[in-house]
């Protein structure tokens, strides 16, 4: 899958994320010790919670699934030189849309299932359309607008889920019809996990995005705009058009992530629908070097951490929020990669104009 780079570049690409992970776990260990816990027991419990048995592994994959989508959300926009920080809002809007369309009665599964997935994608794309257009046409920075749209979505989604769709007094929307269920593995395997076919959709989407970015003219154009808008314009590639396209696809990916939660895990929309998947997606994309393969591995790591945290809390007594701290520290280290480059005396990457 990494055929687009040679082995030396690959080594350079993975050394920084690995160092970042290592450094954060060292800091995590110090925190654990300083707080009076046993680090070996802590990490042991974390591992056991994440991978100890079929059910735990399935739950790790389940936790990784939305992160695959939101990681791709961030990475896809990034490949076009954009920072879509609004994955959270796009996921919520997509999820609510799926939870609504999913309740339609009497639609055969063969129509209902794809229709619901598609509707969620369209909703996610529409939710980023205004920031995309403002960026492409007026140059308004997408970071601020997508943040604003996150907060607009929190209110909007709360209103529609609680006051329009939910029965009075309920904090969740009515369950979707079975014809819109994403098939769960527990139907055939002996486990409790709600791991569903959404995970496989995630794998397929990883491949599709890889293919789109590196094997098609669309990807060729999007990446050219991301690297050098001027060179792209010279080559007859419209930067504005590709910015909008990349943002819409990015939003659609987040919407699909929301659909998996609604159709596979919850079967409805509810309070606490997203565990900040949109923001963790930023960490996933960063750590995964904005490459589908890297995103898959990073999503597994963060999925394992979030799945193992309860076990860690139960067995070692360490508050679950250690995992959030670890995530934050990983992001800081990946972002400040200049630190490692200086420490390792690696030459800084060539920048434009040199």
């Amino acid at each position: 899958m990494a055929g687009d780079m040679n082995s030396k570049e690959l080594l350079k690409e993975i050394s920084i994320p690995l160092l970042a992970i290592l450094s954060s776990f060292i800091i995590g260990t110090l925190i654990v010790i300083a707080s009076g816990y046993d680090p070996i027991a802590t990490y042991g419990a974390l591992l056991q919670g994440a991978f100890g048995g079929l059910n735990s592994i399935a739950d790790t994959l389940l936790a990784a699934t939305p992160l695959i989508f939101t990681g791709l959300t961030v990475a896809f926009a990034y490949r076009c030189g954009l920072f879509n920080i609004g994955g959270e809002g796009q996921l919520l809007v997509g999820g609510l849309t799926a939870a609504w369309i999913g309740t339609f009665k009497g639609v055969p599964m063969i129509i209902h299932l794809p229709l619901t997935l598609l509707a969620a994608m369209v909703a996610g794309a529409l939710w980023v359309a205004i920031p995309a257009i403002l960026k492409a046409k007026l140059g308004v920075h997408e970071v601020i607008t997508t943040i604003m749209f996150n907060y607009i979505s929190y209110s909007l989604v709360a209103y529609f889920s609680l006051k329009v769709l939910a029965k009075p007094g309920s904090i969740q929307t009515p369950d979707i019809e079975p014809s819109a269920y994403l098939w769960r593995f527990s139907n055939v395997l002996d486990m409790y996990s709600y791991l569903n076919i959404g995970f496989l959709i995630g794998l397929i989407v990883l491949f599709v995005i890889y293919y789109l970015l590196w094997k098609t003219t669309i990807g060729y154009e999007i990446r050219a705009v991301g690297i050098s808008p001027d060179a792209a314009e010279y080559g007859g590639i419209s930067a504005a058009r590709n910015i909008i396209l990349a943002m819409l696809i990015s939003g659609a990916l987040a919407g699909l992530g929301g659909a998996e939660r609604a159709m596979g895990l919850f079967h409805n929309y509810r309070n606490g629908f997203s565990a900040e998947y949109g923001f963790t997606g930023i960490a996933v994309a960063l750590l995964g070097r904005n490459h589908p393969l890297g995103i898959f591995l990073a999503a597994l790591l963060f999925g394992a951490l979030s799945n193992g945290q309860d076990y860690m809390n139960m067995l070692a007594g360490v508050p679950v929020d250690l995992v959030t701290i670890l995530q934050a520290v990983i992001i800081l280290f990946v972002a400040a990669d200049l630190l490692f480059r200086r420490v390792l005396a690696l030459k800084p990457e060539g920048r434009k104009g040199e």
Partner: protein
Amino acid sequence: MEIFQQIFNLETFSSTLRMAIPLMVAAIGGMFSERSGVVNIALEGMMLAGAFIAVVVSYFTGSAWLGLLGAVFFGGVFALIHALVSIRYHADQVVSGVALNLLAAGGTVFLLNILFNTSGTSPSVTALPYWGPFKPTVYLGLLIVLISHYILFFTPFGLRVRAVGEHPHAADSVGIDVEKIRYVCVILSGMLAGFAGAHLSIGVLSVFREGMTAGRGFIALAALIFGKWYPFGAMGASLLFGFFQAIEIRLQGIEAIGIPAEFIQMIPYILTVIALAGVIGRATPPAASGEPFEKGKR
């Protein structure tokens, strides 16, 4: 008429002010950071950290004033991470901000567990006393706006801040230490956000609750943009947004005329997007905000 009275009365006024103060002070913090060229979307996290430290210090010393001081101090320390990562190591300032927000969210609850063995709400601590109708943070917050305006527009330091955020190379060419100015401004932004957080935890309340800032750091960011990066602009926008929060609390009046509270909540963000789009006078950020400064490059 009844609705009108329900919305516009003395209590709404005072609650508007209470709501606006943390937005205002944090927005001013963001203003210093962004005016110097460092984007700060970590106001939320810095506020949260400040709110937490205020409660912790007040709990262990019994003094709310020391709590306030601690929040300001620790807010600055917390912001130092942002400064180091984004100024020294040229990291993406937005990414660094995201990380700090996460770190504050996780760190406060982690410590809540370690220190108080609870994960929701801290024990009750000594809050700041009333000074007349308001807590001291309200008066101090208004004073901060005035002083910030003075610093930004009437002192050599303020002139340098404005220059560094617009054209760092021009500032560098006349011998100004661009990085130093940025460090000071980012740390200042953390201190002010810490103050804003303390207002929430030991001003309005006397406890720390998990995630108690509830997005106020981002409303502050919106107020900063809506106020076009001016101290009085940020104050005006904060009062406006504070007013929406105040009437949102007086829900019944609003819901009675058929406007759901959620729609009121959205207004600050929608206004900000409209301002950015230039529909009501374009809001343009400082030219160099978000860009690491590298000597000798243009």
